[in-house]
């Protein structure tokens, strides 16, 4: 079975948050597709459901019955532990801020996915003789020098932390990177720098990237830009 050219294929997706105060938020997307190797900019106002969509794509949340295929895997058919497994094996995540586990070293943070996934570990070791070397190399390619590796992660700047988080998302060559506003805590200069590095890495490794932001200025650097509002059905399906 040859892999389909689609990294993400969504049809008639409906997800309903349980009501908290008012009626729970409802996300419904009739159709959304991303090709392998695309670097997609997903744009939307705060509270529009961007993070919710990413959680669905990563298999953290489970939608109502629909078509939700990520990397040729039907996420709706998987149990929650299989989805956890799928996530660490194939998807790298990047968040807005506080991306690192404070009591782990820089290296340990980078290697976290390799702890939970044999698949990622094996992939990381394909191009390096040891996991440490793989982590250090990746950090270097993201513009971090080795002296950092020994510092406590809490002592690092936000820009450095985000690069370490990027290294963690990239280690072991996951096919899909999901980034949820990773640049919004950085100032303009750092934003550009970080984005360059991230896009470069993704292009090099032919990784599919779904990048969420509400900052339109970044839009131009991606292969495609999508507005969440355009994806969503105005009337619930």
């Amino acid at each position, binding site marked *: 079975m040859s892999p389909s050219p689609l990294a993400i294929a969504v049809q008639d997706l409906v997800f309903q948050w349980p009501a908290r105060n008012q009626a729970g938020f409802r996300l419904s997307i009739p159709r959304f597709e991303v090709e392998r190797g695309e670097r997609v900019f997903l744009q939307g106002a705060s509270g529009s459901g961007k993070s919710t969509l*990413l959680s669905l794509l990563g298999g*953290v949340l489970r939608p109502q019955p629909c078509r939700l295929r990520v990397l040729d895997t039907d996420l709706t058919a998987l149990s929650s532990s299989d989805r956890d497994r799928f996530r660490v*094996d194939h998807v790298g995540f990047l968040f807005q801020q506080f*991306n*690192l*586990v404070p009591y782990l070293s820089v290296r340990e943070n980078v290697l*976290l996915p390799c702890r939970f996934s044999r698949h990622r570990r094996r992939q990381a070791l394909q191009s390096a003789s040891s996991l440490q070397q793989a982590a250090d190399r990746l950090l270097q390619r993201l513009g971090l020098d080795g002296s950092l590796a020994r510092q406590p992660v809490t002592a690092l700047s936000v820009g450095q932390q985000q690069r370490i988080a990027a290294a*963690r998302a990239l280690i072991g060559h996951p096919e899909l990177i999901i980034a*949820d506003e990773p640049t919004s805590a950085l100032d303009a200069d750092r934003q550009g720098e970080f984005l360059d590095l991230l896009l470069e890495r993704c292009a090099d490794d032919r990784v599919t990237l779904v990048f969420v932001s509400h900052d339109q200025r970044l839009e131009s650097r991606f292969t495609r830009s999508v507005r969440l509002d355009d994806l969503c059905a105005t009337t619930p399906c």
Partner: protein
Amino acid sequence: MAISIALSVMLLLGVEQLRIQARENFTQSISGTDLVVGARTSPIQLVLYAVFRLGDATHNIRWTSFQAVAAHPAVAWAVPLSLGDSHRGHAVVGTTAAYFEHFRYGDRQPLAFSAGQPFADVFDAVIGAEVAAQFGYRLGDRIVLNHGSGGIGLAEHADKPFTVSGILRRTGLAVDRSIHVSLEAIEAIHLDWQGGAPMPGVSIPPEHVRKFDLAPKEITAALIGLKNRAGVFQMQRFVNRYQGEPLLAVLPGVALDDLWSVVGVVERSLLAISALVVAVGLSGLVAVVLAGLSERRRELAILRSVGAGPRVVFLLLAIEGLMVVVAGAALGVLGLMGLGALAAPMVEEHLGVTLSASTLTPEAWRLLLLVMATGFAVSLVPGYRAYRLSLADGLTPRL
């Protein structure tokens, strides 16, 4: 947090260790003695003062009574004890050479001399290891006994000093803290005394005491060994029904059991209090971990993003709690051993209980395991909370 658990574990195990070791110690002291005979009083009191040198005798028994008991055909050996005097806070025991021969302790060990020999002269004294160590006494040193026991400011038998003729090897028992002299010596130093004070105008110098009749008239108690242990109740009845004066014979083991049942209430409440302190420590741990959880929701989300399922998150938090408990417990055990090593000499001096700080009794191990099991159980609470949180939050905790 680990510190508070360490302290509470220290308290709990400390109480337990002290309890068990005190019992062991007391039991060891009497391993070779079948009966303790003295004036009629409470059995516990008799055993306490005759064997452990704790408390004072209220009455003495006549020497003739002792002789009658010792002459009984069932008796293998009889050691008379004459108590009441002291030397710098340590008990003076008037006895006979039979004491060194027949006294047994622990695993039926006899007493042994580390230097010298039993008293031969009236003014010879055999001192216990602790007495020797504490005051630096050596063979040939002269020591002065006090009249009576307890406090400072006691009258001295200064005119009749004793010479150290022997030093006993350490036993860990009351023997270490005793000065042993002959019964004749006790008579001799009291020749010119009456009713607890020197007789005015009368002073008998030591070189003259031998002209007097130094045969003992009274003793405080006697330790009896039987030829055949099976006859112990018969012998006890014989003593208790002795016609000459009211006597009391006690099986020391039975008396100790009585003592433990009295002390047991206190022990149990102490143990309960320490257990409560441990409970407080553990609930403190849970409270702290729980309080910290809301700040760690990001961390949980990160773990979720790298494939940790809610169950893994649960386990991680539970194990984290357990590790704090284990670390605390280990710290507590180490602290207890350190403290034990420091406090052992003091405890030995005041309670007559030798602490071995370096080993835990099986009971203490059991308690320790119980603490850790409880610690793990309570760690499930933050674990479960983290499980719920990570399920609800997914990758995007609402902070």
